[in-house]
């Protein structure tokens, strides 16, 4: 029996698939990846590609892998995987269902669950199945028609590979001081397309649009709503790892990196979790076999995209960027946030301390509001001086934190140590105010 479509799971024998995609395998020199789990990757189209683009790329893929153009011992299942992707993505209803599964379960598991659902004769609607499997409310879903109204994410294929000089790398790459940069990396394979970087985005901070594209692969982040995004990324089996990155919530960015069972590089998925919303800038994940670097856009970075890199077999050496990493102009605030939310610098300390104070102010605002109201009430009474101090000081405390609310924190979410510092400072200020404004006058 030919393997089912769900054969992309992580338990699939890696040897056969990786070997069949390499060497003289048909289509090895094309962007199509029939053995990939995700349908978009198989056809090399963005997740929000218009139907016309899907159709054209689908025809190219079909031409590449059609049995009539292969030798007679060609495994027709390879073509069937292409045609399955074509038929699904060209049909608006099927595509919506498929993308709903991928949105909620990631590309690899989502594809498998979608195919299983079809094989079972679609006993329930796609949303019912997703809700049941999640045991909760599925991610908000924007129909394909709305996705298609967005301009397709521009992709840049085979850009000129300009190997930067070491001095260029030192000058331009924020990751040169990244503490996560591996010291044992010696990989400088200039042909590695993982280094290719293309990026667009409309800058409104992390709660708005953020697009990251890894060339040669499915675009990695697509905005589905203001606070949820799907990240899907696959890499060509045989040539590179097959990898998917999926899952997104505003304050819980969860990367699930797996090989789709097609290579030996990863036996198990690698999970990297941020508990809080990551700050804009450079974020790096490392395993023994792979390194993934993703830059996240911050406010005002719409015109200049950050780098998105994949490095295999190691990373850069010491204080210099890997030679094969393309260097582009970094985000304007990347100097402060180049490493991650945990980067320590004087500016960070200051900013995070202020943010801690604000955080406490916001936390105490209901209490302060009550006090301020009491002060204004006191003004109507004979206690005019006391009322003036109460209202002035506590209104200030009320307005100050409210003024910060809604502004994007330049440092991202505030870590606990800085919150504690803010609590101590706020407590001191409050005690002083109360003593001078109320108790002192008495």
């Amino acid at each position, binding site marked *: 029996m*030919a393997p*089912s479509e769900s054969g992309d799971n992580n338990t699939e024998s890696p040897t056969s698939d990786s070997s069949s995609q390499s060497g003289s395998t048909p289509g090895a020199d094309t962007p199509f990846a029939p053995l990939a789990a995700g349908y978009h990757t198989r056809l090399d189209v963005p997740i929000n590609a218009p139907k016309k683009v899907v159709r054209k790329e689908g025809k190219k893929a079909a031409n590449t892998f059609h049995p*009539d*153009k292969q030798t007679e011992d060609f495994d027709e299942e390879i073509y069937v995987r292409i045609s399955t992707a074509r*038929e699904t993505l060209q049909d608006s209803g099927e595509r919506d269902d498929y993308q709903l599964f991928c949105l909620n379960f990631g590309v690899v598991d989502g594809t498998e669950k979608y195919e299983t659902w079809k094989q079972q004769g679609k006993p329930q609607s796609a949303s019912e199945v997703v809700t049941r499997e999640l045991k909760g409310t599925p991610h908000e879903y924007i129909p394909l028609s709305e996705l298609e109204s967005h301009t397709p994410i521009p992709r840049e294929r085979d850009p000129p590979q300009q190997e930067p000089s070491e001095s260029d790398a030192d000058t331009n790459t924020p990751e040169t001081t990244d503490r996560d940069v591996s010291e044992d990396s010696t990989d400088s394979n200039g042909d590695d397309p993982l280094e290719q970087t293309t990026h667009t985005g409309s800058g409104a901070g992390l709660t708005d649009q953020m697009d990251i594209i890894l060339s040669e692969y499915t675009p990695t982040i697509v905005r589905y709503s203001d606070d949820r995004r799907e990240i899907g990324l696959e890499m060509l089996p045989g040539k590179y790892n097959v990898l998917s990155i999926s899952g997104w919530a505003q304050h819980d960015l969860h990367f699930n990196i797996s090989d789709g069972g097609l290579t030996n590089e990863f036996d198990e998925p690698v999970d990297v979790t941020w508990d809080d919303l990551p700050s804009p800038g450079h974020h790096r994940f490392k395993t023994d076999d792979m390194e993934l670097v993703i830059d996240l856009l911050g406010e005002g970075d719409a015109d200049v995209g950050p780098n998105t890199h994949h490095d295999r077999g190691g990373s850069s050496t010491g204080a210099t960027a890997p030679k094969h990493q393309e260097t582009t102009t970094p985000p304007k605030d990347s100097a402060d946030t180049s490493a991650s939310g945990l980067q320590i610098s004087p500016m960070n300390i200051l900013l995070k301390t202020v943010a801690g104070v604000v955080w406490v102010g916001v936390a105490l605002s209901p209490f302060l509001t009550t006090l301020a109201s009491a002060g204004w009430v006191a003004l109507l009474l004979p206690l005019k001086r006391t009322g003036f101090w109460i209202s002035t000081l506590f209104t200030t405390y009320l307005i100050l934190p409210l003024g910060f609310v809604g502004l994007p924190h330049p440092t991202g979410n505030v870590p606990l140590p800085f919150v504690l510092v803010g609590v101590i400072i706020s407590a001191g200020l409050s005690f002083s105010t109360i003593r001078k404004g109320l108790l002192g006058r008495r």
Partner: protein
Amino acid sequence: MNNTKPVGIDLGTTRSAIAHYAVDDVEVLFNSEGEPVTPSVVTIDEDDDDATAGQAALNQAVLNPDRTIQEVKRKMGEDVEVTVGGESYKPEEISALILQKLVEDAKEKINTDINEAVITVPAYFGENQRTATENAGEIAGLDVKRLLPEPSAACLAYGFQKGKLDEDVSENIFVYDLGGGTFDASLVDVDYELNHVETLNTDGLNNVGGADWTSVIGGWITEQVIDAGGADPNGNPQVQSQVMQKAREIKHMLSSKESAQLAGIVGGVGVDAELTRDQFEEMSAYLLEETFETTDQLFDRADLDVDDVDKVLLVGGSTRMPQVRNGVEEYFGMEPSVELNPDRAVAQGAAIQAELLSDRATGVTDEIVGIDDGLVLVDVVPRSLGVRLHDGRTSHIIESDDEIPTVVRREDFRTVEDNQTAVEFPILEGESEDADDNDKIGDIRLDDIPPRSSNEDSLAIEFELTSDGTLQIEAEDLKSGEAVNATFESAISRDEEEISKSQAELPDM
């Protein structure tokens, strides 16, 4: 004859043609009578030893109707036999004689051995009809490399003829293919830049063709004979054959003239009557309407609308009737293309495909002008395939319009009884939910099923339709993940021994 040459064959209901790819061009090979098309007619002599096919057999139709077989394509795939004298023949055996005639004449023409062929079939031919056609080719001694849908072949020929291949043009082509015995409606996306010819949707009628228009005129002639005091020709095969021959002549005449005269002795009585084109079109309007109802059905399920069609190709000799051309023009709001020779285009397209498949085998891919980088024909399943369930319903597994090749797996099957270890059920073809309304194409038996409850879905069935049209069926026990022994027996497929037996028993040409 040292070399071999792959050929393309249009095995038609009333007429057939054969072509090959010559230097820089596709050439239709004329038969020994000097004609590009050969009547699909066979006559078997009194001793049942010799057979004649083509025009000579057609000439025998009036004198020797009992021993003349016409329109056998309409019986392909059916479990029937054609009786001539005391001998019975399967439809594919008669078709094999027609193929032999075509191939023998072609061999003489190009002085080359011919043992590989692409044979065209109506797009709407089902599994049994395709299998029977393949059997016919094998009985005729051919290695049938592919059964090619006639509309796809026509599009291929059209692209080649227009020299558009490799040009940056893409068209949605509707192929209105009205042959002698069948009608095919196909929507084809032809991307000349990519050399990609993809059938998007197909529908058809296996019982409507030019022969039915001929029968309408035959009915009119019969009335004239009876009105003139003659006996009903339907009771006399010889007279009936004469009537049909007159009907064909009148039909052809009405394609170029406004009226045709029936004059002479028919069935022993003199008749003299005039049939105008308007009368003929009125009498046969229901047939044309049936083709447009089928076209409506196609567009009902297609992603494209009538307005999205860029070009309409007319294929099949019956599209020469002005009634058809005018009707198609009115339906699509555009004048249909008449650039193709409707009698030859299908064979030409098949010849191109035969050459491409031959290149695939030999590794030579640059022989055909304009197709340096190869060409891909993507076809679809014409009719859904499924299995019969215990309650008489059909569970469709491969749906019509699915691309070929395809693999479809379904996991929602269960046994009827608890601890049932074997199950046998028919494989069906057709769109109806009611199994009895669909055609049976074979049986499958699953053995060695581990005992289990009948209350849960526990069996998976997988249909694989390969690019050469072979249907493979496999099953799996979902509880253990083990394959279940599945034996598929086609209702019509014949093994080598049966093919050899037919070859030995057929009359000599």
